[in-house]
Structures are given as structure tokens and as C-alpha cells.
């Protein structure tokens, strides 16, 4: 059998799955060593995936197409997983807290597993139709997914926040192992800021691309509109800090709603609504 990038990526799925289980066990059993193993496994998975992405790029040149692995549903889901892990690893490195991994790695695992094992997601390397041959599109996809991945992590933090704040004795047992509410709130705010910046860049580069490809920077197509809805939700979250009473819990709920909107922007629009962005459909 010829090993290609999509095989390596399927194997990465299992590595991430193992990492997620390790992080969760580390959280529940409070075993320090499990945490170290979890981080090691995550880094191994990340390196494997980085290699696979680079290799896929090379494969597309061999096929005569020559484009970055960011052109269809499969590739964007895989990229989403990659960025989520990257954002998480940075947070782990900066906060020295591994428990967040129990809430961040499952998002990446789910995305890459869906890409690898759902038969309706085609893992073939496809050539780019003329409308998709644009560096602006490349910038658009990369920046949007940086935003989406940050929002995934912010959603994980929000879930942690809600678990901890709902618990009758938050400083004990499983909830006690979670970082403090203040730290979770701060991290959530910072990840939302980071994500909002990239989502803004993503929407802007998308408009530039649309303007070059068909002469209209904004045409209210469902995908565009949903990305704007997502943007409104996070703008709400940023402003809510300045209104008294909108702290932790409400921001956590907004962060979860925001991420649902991200998921809908991505899947709902592709499967339920029609529009310009149905990837790979000939223009």
C-alpha cells in the first residue's frame, strides 16, 4: 500500500484521541505523570500532523495541481484541528496548566476524526477551479480558522468555567483541580480577543477575495452572513465586560453560543443552506 498524507492524518486522529483521553484522566485522577504523557503525546501528534500537511502540499505538486492543503472540507477540518492544537499548546506553555487540555483537545480530535472517517468527506486532493485560485482565499482560510480554533478553545474554557461555578464546592474534588474562576475568565477573554482579531482579518480577506473574484466585497450569501453573526456575538462578548453584571458566567454562555455559531457557519451552511461557498462545486 502506498502511504499518503491522508493515512498519516488518520493515524494522527488516534494520537489526538489518546491525548484527549490522557488529559481527561489527568484531570479526573489528578495524576501528574499522566499529564506529562498527555502533553508528550499531543506534541507527537502535532508534529505528525505538521509533517502530513507539508507532505500533502508536496503531493498536490506531484499531481500537477500545486496548492496549499486548504481547499476543501476535508483539508479545512484537518487544518482546524491543527490550529486548535497549536493554540492550545501555546496556552499550556504560557499558563503551565494542563487541565485545559481536557477541554481543548477533544475539539481537535472530533474535527480530524470527522474529516478522516466520515464517508461523505472526500479526502482526495482536488485541483482548484479558477475562482479558488487566489492567495487572498488562502489568507482567508488560514485567518478564519485561526479565529475558529481560538473560539473552540474559548468554548472549552467556558465549559470549564460553568462546571466550576455550578459546583456546590468548587474548590474540592474534580472541580477543585480546575484553574481558578478568575484565571478561566481572563483566559477566556484573551482567547476571544485573539479569535475576534483573526475572525475580523478572515472576514476582510474573504471580502477582498470575493471582490477580486466576482466584483462584490459583500453579497450577503449565507456563509458570509453567518460569519458576520459570529462576529456580532463575539463583539457582544467584548462589550459586555463594560456593562456591570456581565462577567464570567454570561461571557461563558456567549462564548458557547459563539462557538455554536462558528460550527453552524461551517457545517450548517454547507449542509443546510445553499450559497457561494459550497466548496468544490464548479463556479
Amino acid at each position, binding site marked *: 500500500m502506498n502511504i499518503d498524507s491522508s493515512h498519516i492524518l488518520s493515524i494522527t486522529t488516534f494520537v489526538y484521541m489518546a491525548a484527549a483521553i490522557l488529559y481527561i484522566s489527568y484531570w479526573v485522577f489528578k495524576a501528574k505523570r499522566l499529564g506529562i504523557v498527555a502533553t508528550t503525546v499531543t506534541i507527537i501528534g502535532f508534529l505528525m500532523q505538521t509533517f502530513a500537511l507539508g507532505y500533502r502540499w508536496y503531493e498536490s505538486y506531484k499531481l*500537477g495541481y500545486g496548492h496549499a492543503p486548504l481547499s476543501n472540507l476535508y483539508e479545512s477540518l484537518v487544518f482546524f484541528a491543527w490550529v486548535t492544537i497549536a493554540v492550545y499548546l501555546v496556552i499550556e506553555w504560557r499558563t503551565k496548566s494542563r487541565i485545559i487540555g481536557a477541554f481543548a483537545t477533544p475539539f481537535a480530535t472530533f474535527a480530524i476524526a470527522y474529516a478522516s472517517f466520515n464517508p461523505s468527506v472526500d479526502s482526495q486532493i482536488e485541483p482548484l477551479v479558477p475562482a479558488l485560485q487566489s492567495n487572498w482565499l488562502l489568507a482567508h482560510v488560514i485567518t478564519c480558522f485561526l479565529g475558529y480554533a481560538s473560539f473552540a478553545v474559548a468554548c472549552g474554557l467556558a465549559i470549564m468555567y460553568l462546571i466550576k461555578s455550578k459546583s456546590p464546592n468548587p474548590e474540592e474534588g474534580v472541580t477543585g483541580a480546575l484553574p481558578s474562576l478568575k484565571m478561566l475568565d481572563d483566559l477566556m477573554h484573551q482567547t476571544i480577543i485573539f479569535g475576534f482579531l483573526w475572525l475580523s482579518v478572515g472576514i476582510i480577506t474573504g471580502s477582498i477575495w470575493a471582490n477580486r473574484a466576482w466584483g462584490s466585497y459583500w453579497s450577503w450569501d449565507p456563509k458570509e452572513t453567518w460569519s458576520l453573526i459570529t462576529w456580532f456575538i463575539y463583539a457582544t462578548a467584548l462589550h459586555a465586560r463594560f*456593562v456591570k453584571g456581565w462577567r464570567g458566567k454570561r461571557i461563558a454562555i456567549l462564548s458557547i453560543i459563539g462557538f455554536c455559531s462558528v460550527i453552524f457557519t461551517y457545517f450548517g451552511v454547507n449542509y443546510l443552506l445553499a450559497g457561494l461557498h459550497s466548496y468544490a462545486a464548479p463556479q
Partner: protein
Amino acid sequence: MVTQEQNHSKSNPVIRFFSSVRLAIFLLITLAITSIIGTVLPQQEPLQFYERYGPNIFKIIKALHLYDTYHSWWYVTLLVLFAINLVVCTFKRLPTTLRLYKRDNLDISLDKLKHMRIFKQVVLPKNVSYEQIISEFKEVAGGNISEKPLENGKLVLSEKGKWSYWGLYILHGSILVIFAGALVGILLGFKGSVSLLEGEATNHCIQEVTGKPIPLGFTIKCNKFTLSYYRNGTPKDYRSDLSIIDHGKVVIHKILRVNHPITYKGITIYQASYQAIPRITIKIVASDGQQKILQVPAFERITWPQEHVALGIMRYLPSVHGVPAAQLWWADDSGQPPVAIWLLQGEQRELRRSNNIYQLSLINVTESYMTGLEVKKDPGVWLVWIGCGLLLAGFLIVFWASHRRIWLWIGEENGKKIAIMAGTANKNKLRFERDFETISEKLSYFSGGEK
């Protein structure tokens, strides 16, 4: 923020309402929710289309313009309210920001300095001169320097990033700039389309919404259209070889491709679509012994007078089972109604009419192309891009640029020569703490100083 809330309560209630962040949040949430409608309900269809949702929903759709949500009166009203909210809130904040910006940061007491969280104090050797330490501080700390005497000593201040207070104005202003750009585009721009056969030229386009012709002020000519495919049959490239002719002179001669528009005199031309236009050759053998080879171009009625036959191309497919296929309409004097018949290249078809039987075969097809261009004038687009740039710049300033102040006081206390350094930053406190540390390391008398 607290001071602002207090300001609010003193002012006029209308201004208070329009400047509130609560209204901003209300509008953001309302816009987020109502924007969903237009993504679920198909937009800009003819009105009859919406009758399928039943009479009651149809009434709602009609009354609220839900068939074109984003241009409906209430959606536009929300956007206008949003803009008003931004403008009023910005002006309302102006005095507060100006006060912060103009504040005299040297106006501070020694006691306050000593209570800052980031603070260092050292005892200086007797023989060291103030001037020496101050000039060293100025050099190392950089930024804007000011100084004044204070409580038996001297106070020096190094400030950086005071301008960052304006970041929020750049950020919020950018949204207004984008709105303005969109408005200019709506009021002064247009969007139309042009279809050109190879060799054809035109000096106007067809407006998209109204179908009216709009003069371009110059002529577009399509010299040639070419298509290329990848090995698996996916289209790879559409190219229109265009000449732009102004006052009889060719001013631009260029290949137009998707994602590579051409702009002339403020009008931008995009490659949007194409159509293959066939010219087929058919052979007809009639049962009465007559036969004929006919050239049939698209969109034309071709006759064969001896047999009283007229025909033309109805539809054309470049590839059916790998060969071209054309559907012809056929009329003759048999008294029977005209018929349609599909011909595949290389296969003979029989057409039975009451007075004759014809054997038809499609011998050859030559294709030419008609290119579909989109033509757009949008004099507001540059404002939109400036707004986008300002939005990102403003965002970076708001979250990452900080106003940092470092004070150095040198003076005498209890008969000792003492130096105190203290500082604050309004953002990025961790980084400031590190910077402060680095600066104090570089100052010869502070490096060993106690915290």
C-alpha cells in the same frame, strides 16, 4: 468606566440612551438574531415564490420585506441606529479621553509613587550627582521626558504610548468609514453584465437588477476566449483576450482571468462565465434521393429551399459519451408540426415525416465561445478597504499598545540620598513588569537595588 456611568446620569436622557453600551449590546444581539432570517429564507426571489409558505407567513414576509432582509427598512434602521450609537458614544467619550490625554502626569505626590505596585528604591552614594543619574535614566527609559522639582528632590517622567488612547476612536471610527464606503458604492456605483462572442465588441453593459443598458464610456472587445482543463476534467482557467478601446484607440490589451480583473476609468471588468457556441455541419439524405450538407451556426435559422426544410440548433452539449451532441428543431412542408431531434456526432438518425424520410448525421462541430463578463463601478470600495485597515489597526492599538509611565524621583530623605523608580501601564501589565525590570537592570545605581 465608573466615572463614565456617573457622567451618564447627569446628561440628557436621549444622549444617555444613544451613547450607552447597553444599546450597543442590544443592537449587536438583535442584528445577530435577525441576520439569520435571510440565510434561511431564500432571498430576492420573485414575490410569488413566497406564496408557498402559506397566506399568513406570506403576509409577514411581504410586510417586513423578508424577501430582501438586508435591504429592508427595519434592518437598515438597525444599522443606522448602530451608526448613531457609535457616533454619540464616541463624542460622549471625547472629554474623558482628552482629560486622560492631557493629564499632567508629573502632578503626583511622592507618597503615591511609593505605593505603586511596581516600585524600586535605592540609597545612593553621597558623591553621585543628580544630573548623572537623570541623564542615564532619560537615555535608558526613552520616550517622552518631562521633569519638575518635587518634595526636596527632582521628579523625572518617561512616558510612552500616550497616543494609544485614540485606538478606540480609530476602531469605532473604522466601522463608520466602512458604512460610508458602502453608502458611496450604493449611491454612485452600478453592477452590470456583458456577453461577447469572440470578435464582438460593446460600449455598454446590462444593469443587473433593472436590465437597462448602461453606457460604459469606452468599448470592450473580446478577441478570443480560451479554456483549459486539468487532467481529470476540472476547469483550470478561463481567459478572455480583451481590448479596451477608447476614442478609437486600443488603450488596454490584456488577458482577463478569474481573480485577475481589469480596471479602466473606474470601471472594473471581471471574468464571470462563458458559453460554448457551436457551429455544426450536418448531412441530410432524403428518401427522394436529394442530399445536402448544411452549415448550421447557433442562433440562426437555416433553410434547404428545394426540400422546403428549415432548421436550427435548440440545445448543444459539448460532450455526451465523449462526443458532441446537438438538438435541432426541424420544420418542413409535410403539414406536421415542427419536431426536435437529438443528433450525436458519428451516429445516423432517421427522421420520418409524412412526405419523406430523412437520414441525418452530425458530421462536424466547431466551437466558438461567448464570454460572460461582469462590469462594476464602485467608487466607495477604497473607503471600505481603508475602514478595514483602520479596524485592524485600531484593534491592535486597543489591545496591545499601552500607555506606560515610569517616574524617577531623586532627593534627600532622613539625610540620605535616595532614588525611587515607579511605574504603571494601562495594558499588558506583565510585559511592563519585565520592561521595568530590564530598565532598572540597565541603570547603574538600580541594578542591585532592593525592591
